[in-house]
């Protein structure tokens, strides 16, 4: 589970690979502006780390809207149609029971359980979909190495340019982030 790159460290014990350049900003407006400018400068592998959800930051970083709702829709349809079909099968095929001459396919009576099945499977899709799409559980991630990163869950607003970015150049990235008003800029390794 802990994906420390021990092989790389053994091969070159003196220099673990650089992950990227982490800059800290003072507030939401600052980090949105910075994210826009960094993207405008041509960087593509940019991600922000904040302690509260910052609205507009995903647009500034060029993140596409999440596809999670479609997953939830699929879950809901599965749950609803699955349970409705199951009850229909039980009452029509597997165990038909004549109760006061009422029709076997008394679908209005199936509605509550169909609804509950829809909610249950949608919720499973939303929660486990979120966890899977985000790649959790992932207890270790290189960004945790960035100095001061523990503030990303306390009061900090961080912006990171990854070293894998084709444009990445430590000196240029650092000066750009400083120019954009970062309060601290550090290069950090994996």
């Amino acid at each position, binding site marked *: 589970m802990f994906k420390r790159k021990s092989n790389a460290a053994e091969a070159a014990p003196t220099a673990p690979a650089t992950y990227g350049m982490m800059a800290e900003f003072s507030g939401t407006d600052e980090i949105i502006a910075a994210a826009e400018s960094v993207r405008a400068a041509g960087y593509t592998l940019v991600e922000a780390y*904040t302690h509260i959800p910052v609205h507009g930051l*995903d647009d500034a970083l060029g993140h596409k809207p999440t596809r999670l709702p479609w997953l939830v829709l699929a879950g809901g349809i599965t749950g609803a149609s699955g349970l409705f079909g199951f009850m229909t099968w039980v*009452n029509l095929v597997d165990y038909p029971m004549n109760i006061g001459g009422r029709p076997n396919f008394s679908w209005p009576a199936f509605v*509550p*359980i169909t609804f*509950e099945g829809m909610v249950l499977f949608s*919720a499973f899709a939303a929660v486990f979909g979120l966890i899977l799409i985000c790649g959790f559980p992932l207890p270790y991630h290189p960004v945790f190495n960035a100095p001061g990163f523990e503030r990303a869950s306390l*009061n900090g607003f961080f912006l990171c340019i990854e070293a894998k970015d084709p444009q990445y150049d430590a000196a240029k990235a650092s000066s750009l982030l400083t120019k954009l008003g970062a309060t601290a800029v550090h290069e950090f390794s994996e």
Partner: protein
Amino acid sequence: MQTSQPLKPPVVETYDELLGPGETYSSVTARIGDIVLYPVLKTPWGWIGGFVAAGLLLMLYLYSLATLFTVGIGIWGINIPVAWGFDIINFVWWIGIGHAGTLISAVLLLFRQDWRTSINRAAEAMTIFAVACAGIYPLIHTGRPWLDYWFLPYPSTLGMWPQFRSPLEWDVFAISTYATVSVLFWFIGLIPDLATLRDRAQHPIPKLFYGLLSLGWRGAAKHWQRYEKASLILAGLSTPLVLSVHSIISFDFAVAQLPGWHVTVFPPYFVAGAVYCGFAMVIVLMIPIRRWFGLHSLITMRHFDVMSKVMLASGLIVTYGYFGEIFYSWYSGSIYEYFLIVNRIAGPWAWSYWALILFNVLIPQVLWFKRYRTNLPVLFFVSMCINIGMWFERWVIIVLSLTRDFLPTSWGVYTPTFYDWATYIGSFGLFFILFFLFIRLLPMVAIFEVRDLVHKTAQKAHDKEDHGHAGA
């Protein structure tokens, strides 16, 4: 940064805002987080005392359940005609309490009510523990609880299936779905806070504990985007879910022809009663908690004011229901319905009906006045009355209808036994032991949401400065 001393800020009551003055990202994080990150050996004595008291009640509960399983449900006061007694009263009462938590966390999220922020976590915990207490009653009231898996549709060797057209079977699905979705929603809400605790914890054991639970949350913008979407979807799912659960519970009654049960108004009437009682329980829990843990600047008087208004509104709907019952018993022209009301008002159990009216209708009228809505001792008293009153409501609906139905020859009496009381009072042991563990191990206020509230409050103040009064 982590202090070993309890944070005891001077008590400054805030009446119009959702946050006390001078709160920052760090101060709210410290205030909530440090309650959890205390060293184990410095756990406050009040917590230990409460935990032990809850444990004793839990022992009583386990004793009464053990007796029930070995002797049978004959230890309860139920018989024919009153086959539903404390078991179902307590079930409906507990699950109704649970509904306020979902309402606060889901419905108010959809309506973007900022006042939910500081109370939703604890209210949701209350939901889960109340549903746990509630769910046990239908399981144990079956007589042979070891066969409860028969409720579930599985391909059994008996070749049979549950009766999917029965509200009692709908209940199985509604309550299990409700419990599951509530736990999932709660856990998703906890993830960013668990990451905060992971980053603040000094000791390796809490660091590992919260680190594993937080799943590696790092606050990436892409994750926040999905996270907020998931929260919104879950809120959207929970809202109709909570309405469906209590509606289905009311169908358990409405499906029968019994006087007082066979009415179409039951679903909204039951849902309003659930909200009423649930908000009362939230207030009963919040008043001591904010005092003991010094959360005055996070749970302000404005919160109590707003919660009281919700309570008053749902109380009036319930009151409307009581008058409705009297009206349609007359308007129905059915002598049985008519007799039911006479029996309630002037029968042998009339005192329980009048207790219900006193606790649920008359006393809560003080909530019309802001003076009492923000007077915590009064509010605590009124909320306790509502909790008791709502218990009496279920008592009146269930027992009074069953004791005297159509044929006087089949009338009966119902007297709760020691074990009836023990399974009721004991269930508080389960509830409070879970609640005490919750406030010790998990942040009882959603830290990141309060930080977001700090941000919004600051922005609002900023806008006000920029645009003068017009902008506000």
